[in-house]
């Protein structure tokens, strides 16, 4: 009343004037990023991947492209298919993390990057097999990977996580071990009477 509310408001802004600014200078300083951050640079371990394409199947946008071939693999002995392509089209990815959640063998992890602008759309397609060959540094995010959180692993520290150190998470619907089974007898058992025609 009588302008006192305005004076009170002026004092509030003056108080904030002398306070430290809440913002930071982005490229030089960075906001604290938490280890669960869902970002680009998916970490993918070829050693673990069986090419089951669960990630591609459950991706809401269908942007994961996988090609496998049974050649040179002894399937009945439990070998996995040979992977010929594993691409993720980051341009359309919305980082929901479902591919990571459904991966039965913990072969795929979210990454922590968020500034991957490219000049052409083709550069936005992550060729994970090429990355694997080049031995790119893998620092997976701990999103849906409680075993990494238990290790207190911080992806932004830059330490590389080897595929056999990454551990397994224990969601009920994930097998604890890669099944080593006689695929031919399994097939005969399950598909004896159906699917033949």
């Amino acid at each position, binding site marked *: *009343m*009588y*302008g006192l*509310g*305005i004076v009170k*408001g*002026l004092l*509030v*802004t*003056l108080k*904030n*004037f002398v*306070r430290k*600014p*809440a*913002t930071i*200078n982005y490229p030089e300083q960075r906001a604290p990023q938490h280890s669960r951050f869902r970002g680009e640079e998916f970490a993918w371990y070829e050693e673990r991947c069986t090419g089951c394409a669960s990630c591609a199947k459950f991706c809401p946008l269908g942007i994961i492209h996988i090609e496998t071939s049974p050649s040179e693999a002894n399937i009945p002995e439990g070998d996995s298919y040979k992977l010929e392509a594993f691409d993720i089209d980051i341009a359309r990815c919305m980082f929901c993390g479902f591919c990571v959640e459904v991966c039965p063998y913990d072969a795929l992890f979210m990454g922590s990057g968020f500034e991957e602008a490219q000049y052409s759309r083709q550069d936005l397609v992550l060729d994970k097999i090429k990355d694997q060959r080049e031995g790119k540094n893998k620092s997976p995010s701990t999103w849906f990977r409680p075993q990494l959180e238990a290790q207190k692993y911080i992806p932004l520290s830059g330490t590389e996580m080897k595929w056999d150190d990454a551990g397994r998470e224990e969601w009920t619907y994930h097998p604890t071990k890669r099944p080593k089974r006689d695929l031919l007898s399994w097939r005969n058992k399950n598909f004896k009477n159906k699917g033949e025609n």
Partner: protein
Amino acid sequence: MLSENLWFHNIYCFLYTGDTAISGCSNATGLLPESLNWMPYYIAGFSMVLVLINIFMAFGALYTYAERRLIGRFQSRVGPNRAGPFGILQPVADGIKLLTKESMIPDQADKPVYNLAPIIMLIPVILVVAVLPVGEGTFMTDLNIALLFAISITALTTIAIFMAGFSTGNRFAMLGAMRAVAQLISYEVPVVLSTVGIILLTGSLSLVDVVEAQAIPFILVQPLAFLIFIIGGSAEMNRTPFDTVEAESELIAGYHIEYGGMKFAMFQLAEYASVLINSAVITTLFLSGWEGPFSFIPSPIWFLLKMFFMAFCFIWIRATLPRLRMDQVMSFAWKFLLPLSLINIFVTAIEVLIFGVNGTFTQGDLWIISGINIIVSIIGIVIFSKILEIDSGFNTQFKVTV
């Protein structure tokens, strides 16, 4: 008149060679030969004009930077800090960007008026610098109607805004122009009336005389006039809480919505320079101008310090307050400011009759007057707030039945 001007006098005498009786200089020989003794007058004059105008325009450009930076701090941000050290070159970068833009003219625009408006907007701001006493003996001219000149010249911006708003043919711009005409003319009245008290006290319209008459700053002697002048001033500069003319949340940019490039830059420069000019006028009228408590600091510095303080206050207000609605802006001018300014004139006139025996006032008289005026202003503000019910919406919330 010019001989009182120290800058002019010194430059003139430095150059002039000839009769000391004509020039009024102490020494008879200057830098230029005697055959060229018509030149020092023009050189001295032009150099003063150049220095003052350029300083004010440069400050206007710097003020854009300062405002963005300070508002950033008020808002808990950093503000522009990329161009140059602490971002001080931001106005230069903005200027280069705006200069290199294509000059676009809308199809529907009235082209001559459209092109003329930014120029007319900028000219009054520059003209006011002519009468501002920046320091002791530092002014371009000591006009005997300087106060009237300053107020009437700044009123010219109304025409520029109107031209800009109507010539573009944009409806938002037209709304802004309509608002501008109504608002600026309304606020002219209380602003002029608030200065009458000062004229009564000093007995002169010259700004130099006004400064010299301030034994104590007139902000204490005329608190009501100061309040009205600062409110009316922000209304005339279209700054919050009276920025209905631009109103970026309603009219996007108001009258200069269709302007781009250099023309837009001129509008911006005029707007920001007008804040500085207004602060300078307030400094002269109410904060005792170039006079300061310590004489070892030169008088122009005092003036600039006070001016920057006022400019800071305008930024502070802008960073804090929401905007009034158009009809509230108008009723505030006519129902609140106008009666208060009339009361101020009435009270001051009586005081001048009682104390001003010879037309001059001792410091003691001024203190008594200031005491009376502060009490009067508090009572006046309280009574008129009650009448207008400012805290519950001016009593003017109305819905038109369609």
